[in-house]
Structures are given as structure tokens and as C-alpha cells.
């Protein structure tokens, strides 16, 4: 696993900032009514997508969730193309035909956000099977929420990855709520990580607000997968800043106690403190990264707004290949 040096630290902080700014701006614009449909925001969970994808190249694959903007950004998807996609514009990464829940860029190894909760498990297994069959050293990361852990696909996907020793890392983002229903109500097992034992693979629950903790656990799991030693299940405890979707009143969230304390934590600020204490970046450098990120997101919004809507004929295009 590569250490977090200055260059890496800058990339991580920039990526986390991009996600936060992208989501905060999406929240603002959605509230103004300019974005159609519904969006699920990733703000608050940046440490997970970033800490994991810091170990990946374009040749590695990820599968994502309905809360996928963070994974897309961390996997290197173009910010302009992403924003235009959310606006439903022709210049979007998916020509405006996918929208927030289906952003994908296969050239970047991003196999798609996914509107089906738990839909990514078997797809990740298939990409892992492909990597093993072609004898590559590439890995697959399957991001999934605590809600998806209760879908049948979790069992089938993790079991297949285990018996075939596939290079797949299952990264659970446990933000405490599947839509409006708590994880502690929904799961028979106390933790999701403990289920790893049933499949005879390593499992670990960790602090998903702590970038360094995620970076290290993911690094270990990804190294293991690259060496052909099989899958790992990571459960990253986190919290989403916004509701399940935009417009959610979030009546279910705690107003005091441990959950409230978790909600109050800011993973980007915490990482900034770490960078200063380790002497990896200066205050000035941190401020510059924040500034650049804001500018880039503002430019993405401009790009999206100025882009044309899809041509009517696009309705019929790209159904069949050839």
C-alpha cells in the first residue's frame, strides 16, 4: 500500500472537496427546481469513496449505488459531464439519458451508479470473474449501503466472490439509515462486517468518517485482492449530511446522543487537521485546494446550464448495440 504523501494528500483533499461542493451545489440547485427527478446526495460520506478509490486505477472497476456522485468523482469521472448529466443535457456523461442514478463511465472503470438497491453485487462479481479469467491484477470495488446488505444479492454476490476467490472488495457505507428505516432495525446481525465470517472472508467495521482509517483498511483489502487472495468485506460507519433524497424531512434522525455526535463530524475538516499535524500540507495549500474545487464546481454548473438538451431522435438511440 502506498503511503499518503504530499501528492496523494492533495488528490485526496481535492477529491473530498469536489464531492462536498458538488453535492452542496446540487442541493442548492435542486431546491431551486432546475434539476428534474430526484437526487440522493453523498455529502458527509466523502472519506469512504475517496479513501477507497485512492488505491484504484482506470483499469480497476467499481459498482456504485443510487447515492453515487461521490463514487463517480473519486473514480475520476468528468465533473462537467456529471453535472450536465444531472441536468439532463446532451453533453452529460450518459448523454442525459441516465441521470443522477445512472451515471457511468466504463472507460474510467465506473460500471454505473445503480437505482436498484443491491443491484451492484452480482455485476461486481462478474467484473471480478472477468479479471480473474483474463489473469489481470485489476480489482473491483462494490460500494453498497446498509440497506443493500439486506437484499438477497448481498448473499449471492459475497458467496460467489468467496467460493471463486475473486478480486472484489465489498465496501459497505453504513450511514445508519436505509431510506427512513434504521440499520439496527433492519439487520439481524449486529454488524454487517460480522457476516464476513459466514463466508470465510476477512471483515472489518471501521470509522468511515476517518479518511486515514478507510485508506488503510481499503489498501490492505485491495492489495489482498490484487494478490489473488480473494474478497474482503469492509463496513464503514458514516452518516449522510442530507436526507435519503432531496426533499426528505429527515424526521428519523437523532437530535441528541451518539448519533448526533456522528452527524456533527466533518470528515474533510478532520482530514485537514491530520494533514496539518503530519506536515503534509500547509494551511495555505489547504485553502488553495478548497478554492480550486469551488471554482471547478462552479464551472461545471455553468457548463451544464449552457449545454443543449438532447435531440428528440436520441429517444430511440443506443437501445441495441450495432
Amino acid at each position, binding site marked *: 500500500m502506498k503511503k499518503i504523501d504530499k501528492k496523494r494528500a492533495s488528490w485526496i483533499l481535492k477529491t473530498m472537496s469536489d464531492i462536498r461542493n458538488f453535492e452542496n451545489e446540487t442541493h442548492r440547485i435542486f431546491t431551486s427546481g432546475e434539476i428534474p427527478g430526484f437526487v440522493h446526495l453523498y455529502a458527509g460520506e466523502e472519506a469512504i469513496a475517496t479513501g477507497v478509490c485512492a488505491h484504484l486505477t482506470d483499469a480497476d472497476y467499481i459498482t456504485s449505488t443510487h447515492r453515487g456522485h461521490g463514487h463517480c468523482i473519486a473514480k475520476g469521472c468528468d465533473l462537467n459531464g456529471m453535472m450536465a448529466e444531472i441536468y439532463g443535457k446532451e453533453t452529460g456523461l450518459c448523454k442525459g439519458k*441516465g441521470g443522477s442514478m445512472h451515471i*457511468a463511465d466504463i472507460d474510467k472503470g465506473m460500471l454505473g451508479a445503480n437505482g436498484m438497491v443491491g443491484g451492484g453485487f452480482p455485476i461486481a462479481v*462478474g467484473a471480478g470473474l472477468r479479471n480473474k479469467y483474463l489473469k489481470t491484477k485489476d480489482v473491483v470495488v462494490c460500494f453498497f449501503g446498509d440497506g443493500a446488505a439486506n437484499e438477497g444479492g448481498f448473499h449471492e454476490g459475497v458467496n460467489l466472490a468467496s467460493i471463486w476467490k475473486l478480486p472484489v472488495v465489498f465496501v459497505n457505507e453504513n450511514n445508519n439509515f436505509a431510506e427512513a428505516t434504521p440499520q439496527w432495525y433492519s439487520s439481524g446481525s449486529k454488524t454487517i462486517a460480522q457476516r464476513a465470517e459466514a463466508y470465510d472472508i476477512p471483515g472489518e467495521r471501521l470509522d468511515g468518517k476517518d479518511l486515514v482509517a478507510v485508506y488503510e483498511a481499503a489498501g490492505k483489502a485491495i492489495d489482498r485482492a490484487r494478490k489473488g487472495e480473494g474478497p474482503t468485506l469492509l463496513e464503514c460507519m458514516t452518516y449522510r449530511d442530507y436526507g435519503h433524497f432531496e426533499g426528505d424531512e429527515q424526521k428519523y434522525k437523532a437530535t441528541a446522543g451518539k448519533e448526533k455526535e456522528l452527524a456533527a463530524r466533518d470528515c474533510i475538516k478532520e482530514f485537514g487537521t491530520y494533514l496539518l499535524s503530519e506536515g503534509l500540507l500547509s494551511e495555505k495549500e489547504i485553502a488553495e485546494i478548497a478554492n480550486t474545487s469551488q471554482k471547478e464546481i462552479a464551472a461545471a454548473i455553468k457548463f451544464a446550464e449552457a449545454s443543449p438538451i438532447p435531440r428528440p431522435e436520441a429517444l430511440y438511440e*443506443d437501445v441495441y448495440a450495432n
Partner: protein
Amino acid sequence: MTRNITFMKAINEALEQAMEKDERVILLGEDIAGGAEVAHLEKKNEDAWGGVFGVTKGLMPKFGRERVIDTPISEMGYMGAAVGAAATGLRPVPELMFNDFIGFCLDTILAQGSKMRYMFGGKAKIPMTIRTCHGAGASAAAQHSGSYYGLLGAIPAVKVVVPATPYDAKGLLLAAIEDDNIVVFSEDKTLYGLKGEVPEEYYKVEIGKAKVKKEGTDLTIVTIGKMLYVALEVAEQLANENISVEVIDLITVAPWDQATIIASVKKTGRLVIIDEANPHNNTATDIASVIGNQAFDYLDGPIKCVCAPHTPVPFATNLEQLYLPNAERVLETAAELIDDLKN
């Protein structure tokens, strides 16, 4: 060289030739080899089953377990894995043992594989062929005898083919595996032992093109799968009454060949469709609707559909025989059109 081989052998040969031609072709399914990690079988490089009907027999010993992959009984897992492998460059051929098991894995086809290309703005291709089997007549009862090719054919971006002869089985399967889309290749389990002329070499049968199996001038009968043989029987009986029947084997259920049927109806003015699926929201009703619209002016009478009743498939042999469309029912249902011809 052409030999007389079974429908099952034709499918097996197509898989073998597709795998020889392209290393990206892999097979996945439950017991498609059988006996994985059983020491005494591994030692002899032997498959235990080669599929529940023996369709894939001998392929594991030839190509190895890396390419002929026994899966656990885990339809969502391996069907979705086939989608993932196809999206990342392989050409998987998963086998769904019976089409009645589709419920276990429908999400991977309905919400994932079939929509990826469109949702991703044309960036993805999902070249996978789902082999499965359908059909009543084997005393397999309600959960192993249904015909759901029409249900799958209703999904945009999914192609569905239903061969009726060994020749078409081989050529269609090779075409399906070369196709860059999801193709469901639905085998009628009661046809596995049927023999027919099949060339030894690699060849393809065009997907989306129906075949006129018998030319005629008075009545068009369109068939799906083994219903071809019902239609040929009807044609023979009517020939005795000097009624000339044109028999069209649809071959591809989705997207089905409108041009061939319209051309035939323009000639005959009468149309009967035989489909052993349940009678509502199926391929036959779809054909009737489209042809009713596109060729109304050429029709001399109503379009008739002969289908299974709107029931599950019964177990008792006599009831199962009543369930399946047969020549007698076709003649009865089509009486109005045929009587007109007799006058």
C-alpha cells in the same frame, strides 16, 4: 458436411464451436458440468452431468472449469455476474436451467443488463446469450414447464430466439453468441431428441428473420418453437381439402419479423398464430395487434390466436395434453376462416 443429429447435439456443437472460435466465450450455470471439486471426477477430467438434460456434456473436459463454470444454485448471482462480465469484455453464455426460474434473476436482465447501454449513453455493450428451456409436454408440472419467451421479449434491448429445428438451433445459437446484445435462446425441452440435418461447419442463422417453412396461398399460420409441427400437421390435413396453407416459423420472438408476415398475409388474407404461451399479453397477441394495424386492408377475416389456456401448466398427463395447442384446436379456432375457404 451435413449429418442427421439431435436438437441437443446441435446446441452442444454450437457451444463447442463458439468456444473454439473465441476465448472470451465462457459458460456459466448450475451443473452445466457437475461434480466440481469431486476428487474422483477431477482425476478423470469428467463432468458429472453436462447440464440437467446433458446439453453441455463434454464441454468441461474439453475447455476446462475456467470456461465451463459450475455455479451454486444462485441464479441472481451468476446471471448478474454474466452481465458484469459482458459489460467488461467477455461473452458469457449463462444457462438458466428452466425459464420458470427467471424470477430469481429477473432484476439482472430487466433493470441492469438490458438498460445499461441506453442509461450509459451508448457506452456499454452487453454481449451475452442466456440459454434456457421452456415448454409443456414433459410432465414437469407448473414450475418447470412454462413458456416465458414472450415475457422476456417485452423488455427493450433483449432479443429472444426460439428454434424449432436442429439446423436453426445451431445456427441461431452461433449468431446469438456473436451478437453484441442480450439474446435469450429458448430451447423447447421436448425437442432435445428431435433429429435433423445439420452442417458440421460453423454457420449462422439470421436473428430477426422468420422462415417460410411451407409456401401456400390461402391461409398463413405463424408458429413459435415446436408449434411449427402442429402447423405442418394442420397444413397437411387442409391440403386434403384443397386449402393451401403457408407456414411461417417465427424463430425470433423479439424483435419479430413483421415484413415476412405482412408479405404472407397480403397473399393469403388469413392469419392464425400458434403460441404455446398463456394467451394474454404474449407474442401472439402482439403479432395480432401489429398485423391488424399494418395489414388490415388485406385481411379477409379476423386474426386467430391459438395459445395455451390462461392457467399454469398442469401435471396430469391428460390435462397437460389439453393445455397444449394441437392440430384439432387450431382447426376449431380457425374454423371461421377455413369454412369461408371451403365455400
